[in-house]
Every structure is written in C-alpha cells, then in structure tokens.
C-alpha cells in the first residue's frame, strides 16, 4: 500500500487537503509568536509588526491564504459525507444545499469579522 | 469428494429458495439446511424484478377478484384449487416480508401502498419503488442470516440429483472457486433455480437464468409442464432486452406507434383512457400487448430505428420528472444510463422481449414432484397458478407463498424418512463427477460453445416467438436436435480447476438444450392458440383459436435419453371458473357484468 495516494487523483486531493491543515498550524504559530512579542514590550511588538509587513511575509501570507481557501473548499465538499442528514419538511436536504450552506456561513462569518476589524482599525 | 449431510437441501438462493430455508429454520431449528447457489444469494435474478407483488390489500378488493383475474389472465390453464390457496396466502406472506423489513412504498398515513398492474381488476400490487424484487431478495437474504441452521454453499454449481430407493436423497455440486466436487445429502431436496429464458436471444434476463433445476428434474423423469408458454414482456429495451417495468404503464405511461397513436385501442383493450384504468388499454395483460406490437409491426406502424430496429414508444413525459423519480427511479436511471434518454423529456423506444417461463417442473399444490422427496418452487416450477400467461406481480408473490409451502412440506418429508445409504449415494455422486469431468478434460472437439449457444437462441426466437407456425417450430425442433449432436463435439479453451466458467457455461448449455427442446416440442404439439402460445396456422387457420375440447390440458414433456422429449397431456383442475371468453377493456367489463348476473 506504499504510495497508495498517488494512484488516484481523488486520493491526491485528499492528501493535499490534509496537508493544507499544516498551513493553518503555521499561521497559528505565527500569531502565537506575535503574542509572545507583545508580552515582551512595545519594542518587540513593533518589530514583529514590521516583520509582518516585509515582502517575504506578504508572500508567506498569500501562500497561507491560498492553502486556507483550498482547505475550506475541499472541507465543504466533504460535508455531505460527514454531516447527519438534515430533513426539512420530510425531505432530505440535497448535498449541494449542504455544501452551499457551508459556503454561505463561511462567507457570512468572513464579512462580519472583516467589518468588526475594519471598525476597530478605523 | 467432500461430503456434507443435511436434512433439507435447497438448490437456488433466490426469493423462493431463501423463503423455503427460513420456513424450515423457523419451525424446526435443529434440522440442517443446505442452501446451494451458483451465485451469492443476493445476485439471484429475483433482484431484477421491478414492479411489485400481488396480494389483496384494499377494502374494495376480494380474494375472488384476485382469483378470477389470475385464472382469466392464464387463459383457464390454471390449477384453480392452487390459485385459491395462492390468493389467500398472498397478503399474509407479503405482510411477513414487511415485518422482516422490506421497505414497501407507503401511503401518506404510513400504510403499505398498492399500485395498478396489467390484467388486475383492483390495485393490489405491493411495491418498493421500482426495485421490488431487489428489496424482497435482500430482505430475505438478510433475514436468513440470523438462522444458524442454514448452511450456505455460495458459488456451488449443482450438477445432479442423487436418487435411491425411488426417492431423492441429495445433490452433487461443484465448488466453483476450486473445481472440487461436494456431495450434499438430504432427505428432501427443493429446486428453486429460477427460469430458463436465456434460451432465447433478446431477453430481460440475467446470464444465470439457464433452467438448471428444470433440466435436473427432467433428466430424473419428472415432467416439465406447459413449457410452450413463454412470456414476452411488451416493454423492453431493444437489443439488450432490459426490462422497463409494467409499473411504467401502471403509473400512467402510454404506448404509442409511429403516428403517436395509442394503438392498443385497436386490439380489444379500448376505449381510450386518459388515466390508467384497470384492465383497459396499457393495463391489459402482457400477452395481448406483445401480440398487439406484432400486428403493428406487420401493418408498418412501428417506428423503424436505424440501430434499434422496430420499436414503439413508451411515453411517460406527462407524468413529470418528480413523480417519475419517486415511483420509477430505476427506470429513470436505466433510460439515462443505457439509452441517453431523459424519460421526462423524451419517450423511450421499446419492444417485446422474453421475460418469463410460465411452465416448469410439474408439482402438486404442496410443491412436491412425482419423485418423492423432490420439491420445486418459483419460476423453475409449474405449480399451476400462471396457466398460459402470467399476470405481472403474481410471480414475486409466488416466491414467498410457495417458498413457505415447500419449506413446510420438505420439512415434513424430511422428518418422515430415514437417512439413506451414504456409501451407495457416494458411488452415484462419483459417477456424476466422472461424467462432468469428461466434458472438461476431453480434447479434439471442433465446435465452439458460443456458436452453439448463438444458434440455439436464434432458433428459439425464430420458432417460438410471439406468433408461431408449424413449419418454423419444426425447424427449431430439428435445429435443436442438430445442436444436441454438435454439443458432443465442443472443445473448451479452459481445462483448469479453479473458477472454470468455460466448463460451467458448457454444463449450463447442456441444461439449456434440454429445456429448449421441451419448449419447442410442447409448442409444436399444441394445435391451438392460448395465452402466450399463439399460432397463425392450421386448416383454415383453425389453430388461431383456443380449443377447449382438445387442449384445455397441460402439456407434459418427458425426458427420453438421446432423443426428443415425449409429450403427454394432463387434466386441468377447474373449481369455480369454467372457461369463458377472455376479454379486457369495455368488452371485459361487459363480460364481468354478465357473469355476475348469471350468478345472481
């Protein structure tokens, strides 16, 4: 069974999906590091903020964003597999409705977060 | 040779075999049951039945109605006492299936629903969408798993019955995965091997439907009864023969010819109805509908498709996509996958195809053959409920009603007799082994098996089709004799032991040739037209009519080694329905009315 996941594009997608979970971990570590710097005083915090604005950091963030989007996309695709059936008016919700619902919730949450952050920043 | 000692041996793991096994296991758990099947039970051809199972359900229905529909549908060639028993047991057995988990389709208030079916006066067909056979089979198979006394021999191919002291005492089978032989002793043996329709070219049937049990009983001197009655189902997929269930019409589908005309109104099935009306138009019996197709073709009113050949259209567009998905999901899927047709948007091209063998191993009302200890059930048997034409949805019910009956009878028989002489049975089994092995190991043959099979199915279609003539039937009889000879000269590509299907198909072909001969010879000797046996010949066309004086009789084919079968005749049991004109549509309603008045 060595290399089983290379035999089928479906498996490859699964493995890439699993791998992109590391991207989430990477971002969490980055934020954690920021938090440590914050605890070390204003100078350390400002240094971290500056580092975050470097071109390399921006490329790093874009790469993470791409990974997140892929992870989200493939995660929602698995919703019809993992969620218990949702019955509305005696009819089972169609798989595409379940996936659509996931996306609607994610986009909604992103917009709300964005508005809040924007409000604080302003 | 492996040896297994059972009390009851059942050959065939489809609906009737499983039902019989459960019957024995439930009432007498200490008896050992051997269930021998050449496929895993859930592959058996019961799986492909679509429309449903008949049993009275509605308050406006009655046992009498079901009885008269069945006897009239069978053109009075039914054993009427057996039909009476059958219609009475039907709702009981169908309810039992419900208790075992069969997902019958329901009404809004949670009761089992029924749908209309061809030739039935009242809606009485219990259905599980359009996968009724599939659900019945899986329900029975899964239910059977809880009984430890049922020992399954999955993928064991039965090659002979063991007969001693004038009674059947077991079977010999090949374990397909190894090619090794097993003798399975049993005080009772039930044949439940299904039909034989694969002797024809274009059929709705699976590859396994090769008449094995019929040939096994036949070779042991048991009669094959009413073999000339072969049902053509009117709505099949051209070329492949795959089935579009009668429920397509029960739910409201129309049959139209090339002019978009619902031609059935011209064949004694009218007047025209917008909504499905029982025993009218598209809900006429299968033999009449298939015959109407033949006439349309003669008149040049069928659609000539460049690839599919002559077809008519099954039009269900007016039923709407949602309804079709709910009631006929498998049909929808088949039309889309196999034909690229969306039945909600386009009509489906169809034509008749071979579907069912009304005849089979002759048994009495308790499913016992003339050979003590040997029972037969389901499509391989002729218990007498189908007569000359089976009504759709009676056969699934037959599986459970007579599965139970045969199980009980086989159990009683097994308890009443002593075990046989194992040593002498083994000798017989070894002789059978040598005979069958010789077919595999022999060299120097020049005939290819597939060639013989192709010639057989073509010849059966030519001679024993919807309409029959003396001359072509005789040609088929002659052809089959020729093929019997040529079969001796076949050569197999595969001489190995493990999973040798080349060899097993050859044994099946041998069975098929026997069964085909019994059909063709029974047909040429029946000089009348009745149900599915329709002739166009005779002096002044005399054979075009039903002839109750000479042929209100069962034909019985008996095996004659090395020669064509001998055809004899047996009486038909009439209890309360004397033969009458068989009428449908408005004429049928009028006849019903007259019968009622004469009774009053």
């Amino acid at each position: 069974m060595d290399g089983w996941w290379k035999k089928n594009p479906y498996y490859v997608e699964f493995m890439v999906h699993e791998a992109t979970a590391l991207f989430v971990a990477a971002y969490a570590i980055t934020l954690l590091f920021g938090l440590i710097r914050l605890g070390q005083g204003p100078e350390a915090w400002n240094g971290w903020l500056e580092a975050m604005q470097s071109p390399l950091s921006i490329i790093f963030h874009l790469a993470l964003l791409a990974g997140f989007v892929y992870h989200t996309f493939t995660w929602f695709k698995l919703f019809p597999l993992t969620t218990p059936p949702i019955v509305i008016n005696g009819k089972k919700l169609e798989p595409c409705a379940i996936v659509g619902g996931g996306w609607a919730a994610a986009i909604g949450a992103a917009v709300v977060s964005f508005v809040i952050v924007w409000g604080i920043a302003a | 040779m492996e040896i297994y000692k059972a009390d009851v041996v059942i050959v065939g793991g489809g609906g009737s075999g499983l039902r019989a096994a459960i019957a024995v296991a439930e009432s007498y758990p200490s008896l050992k049951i051997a269930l021998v099947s050449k496929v895993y039970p859930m592959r058996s051809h019961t799986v492909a039945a679509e429309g449903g199972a008949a049993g009275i359900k509605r308050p406006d229905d009655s046992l009498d109605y079901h009885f008269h529909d069945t006897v009239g549908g069978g053109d009075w060639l039914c054993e009427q006492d057996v039909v009476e028993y059958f219609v009475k047991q039907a709702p009981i057995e169908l309810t039992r299936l419900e208790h075992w988990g069969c997902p019958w389709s329901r009404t809004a208030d949670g009761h089992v629903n029924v749908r209309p079916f061809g030739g039935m006066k009242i809606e009485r067909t219990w259905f599980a969408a359009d996968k009724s056979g599939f659900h019945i089979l899986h329900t029975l198979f899964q239910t059977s798993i809880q009984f430890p006394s049922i020992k399954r021999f999955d993928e064991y191919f039965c090659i002979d019955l063991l007969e001693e002291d004038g009674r059947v005492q077991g079977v010999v089978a090949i374990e397909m995965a190894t090619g090794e032989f097993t003798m399975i002793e049993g005080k009772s043996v039930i044949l439940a091997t299904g039909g034989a329709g694969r002797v024809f070219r274009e059929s709705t049937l699976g590859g396994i439907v090769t008449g094995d049990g019929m040939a096994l009983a036949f070779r042991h001197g048991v009669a094959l009864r009413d073999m000339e009655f072969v049902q053509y189902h009117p709505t099949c997929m051209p070329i492949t023969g795959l089935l579009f269930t009668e429920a397509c019409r029960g739910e409201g589908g129309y049959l139209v010819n090339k002019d978009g005309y619902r031609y059935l109104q011209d064949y004694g099935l009218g007047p025209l109805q917008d909504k499905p009306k029982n025993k009218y138009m598209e809900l006429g019996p299968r033999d009449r509908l298939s015959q109407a197709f033949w006439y349309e073709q003669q008149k040049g009113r069928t659609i000539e498709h460049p690839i599919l050949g002559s077809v008519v259209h099954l039009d269900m567009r007016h039923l709407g996509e949602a309804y079709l998905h709910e009631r006929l999901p498998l049909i929808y899927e088949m039309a889309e996958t196999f034909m690229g047709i969306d039945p909600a948007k386009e009509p489906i091209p169809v034509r008749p195809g071979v579907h069912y063998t009304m005849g089979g191993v002759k048994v009495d009302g308790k499913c016992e053959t003339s050979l003590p200890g040997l029972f037969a059930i389901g499509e391989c048997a002729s218990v007498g409920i189908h007569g000359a034409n089976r009504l759709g949805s009676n056969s699934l019910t037959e599986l459970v009603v007579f599965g139970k009956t045969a199980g009980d009878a086989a159990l009683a028989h097994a308890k009443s007799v002593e075990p046989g002489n194992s040593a002498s049975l083994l000798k017989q089994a070894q002789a059978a082994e040598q005979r069958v092995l010789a077919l595999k190991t022999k060299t120097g043959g020049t005939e290819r098996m597939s060639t013989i099979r192709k010639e057989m199915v073509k010849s059966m279609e030519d001679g024993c089709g919807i309409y029959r003539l003396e001359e072509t039937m005789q040609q088929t009889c002659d052809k089959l004799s020729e093929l019997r000879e040529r079969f001796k000269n076949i050569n197999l590509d595969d001489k190995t032991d493990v999973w040798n299907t080349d060899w097993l198909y050859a044994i099946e072909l041998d069975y098929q040739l026997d069964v085909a001969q019994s059909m063709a010879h029974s047909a040429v000797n029946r000089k009348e037209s009745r149900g599915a046996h329709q002739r166009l010949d005779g002096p002044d066309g005399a054979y075009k009519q039903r002839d109750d004086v000479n042929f209100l009789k069962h034909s019985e084919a008996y095996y004659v080694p090395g020669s064509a079968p001998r055809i004899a005749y047996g009486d038909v049991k009439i209890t309360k329905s004397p033969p009458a004109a068989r009428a449908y549509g408005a004429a049928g309603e009028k006849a019903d009315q007259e019968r009622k008045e004469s009774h009053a």
Partner: protein
Amino acid sequence: MPEQKIIEIEVLRYLPEADQAPHSEVYKVPFTDDMSVLQGVQYIKDNLDGSLTFRWSCRMAICGSCGMMINGIPKLSCETFIRDYYPKRITVEALANFPIEKDLVVDLSGFIEKLESIQPYIIPKEPRTVEQGEYIQTPAQFAEYIQFTSCINCTLCYAACPQVGLDPDFIGPGAMALLHRYNMDSRDGGQAQRMELVASVEGVYNCGAVGYCSEVCPKKVNPGNAVNINKINAAKDYFLRFLSPKGGAK
C-alpha cells in the same frame, strides 16, 4: 447497421494454476456504441479466449456482480460504455483491495463475513403478528433509512477505500451502511446490540473520511455518510455512559 470500430482492451489476467503473478493481455474488440465494457469482455470470452473469467449476471446494475477496476476506477462494467473510452485503450483489472482468485474474480468471503456480522435483520422493537397487519411507518420515518437500503453489495466502495486496503479487518463502508439502515428503521430495536461493533477496533474510527466510497457508489447510497454519522453516534454513546447508568450502548 451501426459502424463497427475496434477498441483495445487490456485485461489483467491471473490463472492461479499457471501464473506466478498477474500479467496483462491486450485484446482487440470490435464494438458498437451501445456496448458496455462487460459486453467487451464477454466478446473476448466468446470469441478469443474462453478461459477469461469474470462474474456477471443481470446486465442492468442491480445484481452487483460485475464490479471491476476500469482504467483504475472501481465501476460496474455493465453500465460503463466502451464508447466513452474510444479511441484510447481500456484497462480492466480485478477490484482493488481484495485477493484475486482468477482473472477478474476476487475473493468476497471476507466481505460476506462482515455483512453477516452486523446483524442485518430486523430485531423487532415491538413484535407483531401477521393478523395485526403491517407496521405503520410515516414518510419521515421512511426517509430516515430508505437511502441506505439501496446497497447492492457490489463492493465498489471497498475497492475505493484506502483504509480497507491498509486494514482488511475494517468493517468497511457497505456493511456499515447496511448496519445503519437497520438502526434507523423504526421497526427495529437492535441498535444497542449493533453499536458495540460500530465502536470496536474494526469499526467506524478506522475511517479517515476520504469519501471516495460514496463517490464510486453506483446507487448513491453514500456509505461514507453512514460511517461518519456513526462516529458521532458511537461518541455520543461513550459519553452518555458517564451521565446515566442506562444511557448509551454497553
């Protein structure tokens, strides 16, 4: 007559009495556009090599016999059409994750044992006699389980499941869907008896939620859903034990 074209079908052959290991053979098969891959291999058996071995019967995707790996994907060969591959070569192999017995025939005994182990029959909640008539089942109760009754035991989901490949003891998607079918049936009261197996070493927690089982299922049973719902059910059972002496299965 429809135009006849030629397709190359490459079959993974294995004759246990002659071969050390499986090998490929290529056959040239004339076909018409209505022909399935099953009809293609039947042509080979009838005309080119009678020793080629495969299971088949109904030809209409309901008996579940004719599953094969077709160009690496588990499919029912009766409803897979040659025209969709032409002019490329078609490769046909025995279903993955099962031992091969001969050519395209695999050993299903392990699957059958799993099927038998899940108690796939009604264990009545309230026994009923025939005289009492049928159980009443509302449309909502019916909708709970009907999807999971559609499994034809074709084992394509087992061929699709990498976990079955890694651990042949995993109960697997098809049998688990059947188990779930009975648990969800309002007539059945056997859930507690079946949950032990669900939560066992062979049970649902083997599943890594790849989801390919549901993707290849020819009857849209979504067996992966049954497996994943039962991860939740088994977890619920586990925690309920701490809350109530009677809660959850044993």
